[in-house]
């Protein structure tokens, strides 16, 4: 029988620990969940038995979360770590990431996007094989995933990547790739060398807006070219390639959802041409079925009214706004928070849909 993974949650708020326990008990892999109320007790627990994942609050008396994470990084390098905090300060976020945490979540976001949070945690619990590859810092992702995330989020940062004695840097400004350097090599050649690394550690450093730009091509074009050349040179088994592609697609789509601020996305292909997919919603099956039926009802309506081709469907309630549109015969239903106007949401939906299969 497969051993259940163990998750340790540390927070000085007993009520919050109960919330976490209840939420994490919904994880499909049914991990064993332990909770402690102080940083010192968390370290003692980690010393006494192996855990797969640590969920750590930042603001705690005596030993705070950053101290706990600092100790964990040194003593338990394989332990996955997630920060759960109410502190909406960017400085804490960057300090936590510089300590090698895999994820940083605000408690309010976690409660609003429970499904996405649980998907991320489940992904962190992941497969055993994930442990031996990837970059410490944000889950066990490839460097390509990390750079895609930074660029897609329009971040400005300098990624410092170390692999044994090798040190490399990648400069990103407003989501654009400026430069890369490893040893004496710079530009695209350096970027290609760095992306061939399969493991290492990385940290986000302060952006350097004035840094000289040596890379002119778009990040997507470069990543595509490099991914192809890596695939050709390593020739991994076909199933492994498919798994990697699936993983990358999952990360990309979850990041897209988070970056654009959408609540969920459902895609429905034409009958008999692939399966529907849902991201960020609990009742995927029902929403998918409704998407299909609503599209059929609207098609009948359009035929009856002879009103020309369908452009899009928008719907709204107090809770959310929905935009449904068709792209390449595939239906996309995207749910958004209610603040934005329909026109704005339509543009955002088109943008998200256009990037969906990137």
């Amino acid at each position, binding site marked *: 029988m497969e051993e259940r993974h163990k998750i340790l949650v540390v927070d000085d708020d007993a009520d919050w620990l109960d919330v976490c326990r209840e939420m994490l008990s919904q994880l499909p892999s049914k991990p064993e969940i332990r909770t402690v109320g102080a940083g010192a007790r968390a370290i003692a627990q980690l010393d006494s038995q192996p855990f797969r994942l640590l969920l750590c609050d930042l603001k705690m008396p005596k030993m705070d979360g950053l101290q706990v994470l600092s100790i964990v990084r040194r003593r338990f390098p394989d332990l996955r770590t997630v920060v759960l905090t109410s502190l909406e300060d960017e400085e804490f976020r960057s300090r936590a990431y510089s300590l090698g945490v895999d994820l940083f979540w605000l408690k309010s976001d976690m409660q609003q996007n429970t499904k996405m949070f649980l998907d991320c945690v489940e992904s962190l619990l992941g497969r055993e094989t994930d442990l031996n590859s990837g970059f410490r810092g944000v889950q066990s992702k490839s460097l390509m995933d990390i750079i895609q995330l930074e660029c897609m989020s329009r971040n400005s940062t300098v990624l410092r990547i170390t692999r044994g004695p090798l040190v490399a840097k990648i400069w990103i400004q407003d989501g654009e790739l400026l430069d890369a350097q490893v040893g004496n090599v710079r530009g695209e050649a350096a970027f290609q060398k760095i992306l061939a690394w399969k493991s290492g550690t990385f940290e986000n450093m302060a952006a350097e807006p004035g840094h000289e730009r040596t890379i002119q091509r778009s990040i997507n074009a470069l990543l595509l070219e490099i991914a192809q050349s890596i695939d050709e040179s390593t020739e991994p088994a076909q199933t492994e390639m498919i798994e990697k592609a699936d993983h990358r697609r999952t990360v990309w789509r979850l990041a897209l959802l988070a970056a654009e601020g959408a609540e969920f996305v459902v895609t429905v292909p034409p009958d008999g041409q692939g399966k529907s997919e849902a991201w960020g919603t609990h*009742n995927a099956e*029902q*929403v998918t*079925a*409704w998407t299909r*039926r*609503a599209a059929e*009802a*609207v098609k*009948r*309506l*359009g035929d*009856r*009214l002879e*009103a*020309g*081709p*369908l*452009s*899009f*469907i*928008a*719907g*709204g*309630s*107090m*809770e*959310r706004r*929905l935009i449904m549109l068709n792209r390449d015969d595939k239906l996309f239903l995207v749910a958004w928070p209610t603040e934005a106007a*329909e*026109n704005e949401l*339509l543009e955002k939906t088109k943008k998200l849909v256009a990037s969906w299969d990137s």
Partner: protein
Amino acid sequence: MGSITVNAQGNIIASTVSSNYSKSLLGDISREVLVIFREARDAQLPLAEVNVHFGSLRVTARETRGGAIIFLMPQTALLPSPK
């Protein structure tokens, strides 16, 4: 172009749409709109309003106690369009 008010059973209570639109056509429109609202509720996606944008026509429907008010509006180049 006008509006139709329908009750929860799909019966047309009031209409300001031109008589060029037959009763059966208006009945079909009402039924499809109510289907969209009802099935959205069943899928735990309750909707208060639906806008369907066709090339030459926009159908806006607002739910009212199980029924709906449905507005039919032409889409022309002179009207503001979300495109």
